[in-house]
């Protein structure tokens, strides 16, 4: 039986840490949470609440600000729902109230939560065909997934750079990250382009995917509040693969 490897061993959760009484623990965890969720939140507010780009940016900033001040996420009970569902429920309530109290919305406030790259997020939204989104819940999930993978890719790039494995990341990037299927090279083409044997390409790719899978699960683990939620998320993840 092959030895189990590459399994996420960390028990660190940005969800639980963001509700910590210790400010030194809470603030970085909350920043990480915002990094993981601001883009799905921004796009969700744009799509579901039909907010303008500026209003969506304000609402996103204000939502996380209020969440930090009022400790929204401290009330999360992992036995009741997934964190993602809980966050979206909080967000819907927040936006509904903000719309009712229009004009009194705390725009940015005294605490800058994070610098939101809303222009880039808006450009991504504009690439969508009109009426392309018929299920906003599924859209939120997909955008969250996109951010999760982006985080894992960034970590994988750093991981490879730190270990002098740039070639491994290059093979992964060229084979697994092209925008369209037509742009995906064959193993042979990749081997010629990189001056390697085809078996080297396939071996490196297999190793890259193993490491990438481990990093994805690590990021997922960090974004879950409990082992149960992590297992449920990971199970759903595996079963929903296209």
């Amino acid at each position, binding site marked *: *039986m*092959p030895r*189990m*490897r*590459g*399994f996420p061993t960390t028990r660190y959760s940005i969800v639980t840490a963001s509700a910590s009484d210790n400010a030194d623990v809470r603030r970085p965890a909350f920043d990480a949470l915002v990094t993981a969720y601001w883009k799905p939140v921004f796009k969700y507010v744009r799509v579901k609440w039909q907010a303008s780009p500026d209003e969506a940016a304000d609402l996103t900033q204000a939502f996380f600000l209020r969440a930090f001040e009022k400790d929204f996420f401290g009330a999360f009970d992992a036995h009741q729902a997934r964190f993602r569902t809980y966050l979206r429920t909080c967000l819907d309530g927040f936006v509904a109230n903000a719309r009712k109290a229009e004009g009194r919305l705390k725009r940015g406030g005294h605490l800058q939560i994070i610098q939101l790259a809303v222009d*880039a997020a808006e450009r*991504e939204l504009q690439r969508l065909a009109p009426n392309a989104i018929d299920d906003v819940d599924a859209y939120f999930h*997909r955008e969250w*997934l*996109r951010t999760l*993978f*982006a985080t894992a*890719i960034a970590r994988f790039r750093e991981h490879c750079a730190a270990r002098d494995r740039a070639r491994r990341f290059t093979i992964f990037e060229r084979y*697994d*990250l*092209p*925008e*369209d*299927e037509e742009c995906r090279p064959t193993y042979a083409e990749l081997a010629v382009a990189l001056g390697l044997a085809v078996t080297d390409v396939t071996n490196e790719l*297999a190793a890259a*995917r*193993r490491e*990438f*899978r481990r990093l*994805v*699960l690590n990021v997922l683990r960090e974004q879950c509040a409990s*082992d149960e939620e*992590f*297992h449920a998320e*990971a*199970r759903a*993840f*595996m*079963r*929903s*693969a*296209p």
Partner: protein
Amino acid sequence: MISDTALDHLQRIVGEPDFTGTRYEPLSVLGRGGIGTVYLARDSVLDREVAVKVLDSLVGDQALAGHLQQEARILARLEHPGVVPVHDFGRLADGRLFYAMKRVRGQRLDRWAATADPHARLAVFLRMCDAVAFAHAHGVIHRDLKPENVMVGEFGEVLVLDWGIAGFVVGTPCYMAPEQRRSDTTVDERADIHALGAILAGLVDGPKALIAIAAKAQSIEPRDRYQHVLELSADVARFMSGFAVRAHAETVVDRIARLGRRYRVPIGLVLAYLVMRLLLIWTLRV
């Protein structure tokens, strides 16, 4: 930004089990069950196709891991032609548990029955009963018998699948015994007899004796059902041989009709003899 194509691709490669270091090379997905996905794979050592069930969960999920292990052990214990044999059990490089088993070829019972003749359906039902009776004799209750969990092979061989919930209180509503819905009741072999009765009812649309057998097997109270699978199969076998069945009190007309069916060959011969004899007498007189 990660494109939709790349996102789907990444989700697939992360979700796919990592068979590196094993003797199995995945070829396609055969199906998804409650806790795992079954892959068609090539066993590179023996150069044959096998089915590999992989847990849709991580190693830390002890409850589901235990579930898959129990399923594999149950299958390994039930060495019977009607139960899929397990070849291997282990852990993949990504930490997921799996077991490899024989690749089952054939049709699901409900699809197969759509084109099979009534006698063949009953013969298959009896083979299914044999497998379940064998499991009961080894202390295993299936708890989720249904046509989707029975495969019929090209040569009429029968395989009962998905023993994954044996030992757990779940099932499929249409085939589930009433006591399985109640958490306060101990479920025993008679729950499977109820499901077999429901399957039999779906396989036949008469005559009355068979309907009565299916109804007795599906009695609401377990004590009113057949108490053992072999009693159920014996009654079906009696019907197939033209004998009276225990589940049905015959009227005189029923008995005559049954005896007529049972002795149709000798009765036909006697009638043919009498007709020829009458013709001969009539010819001689003329």
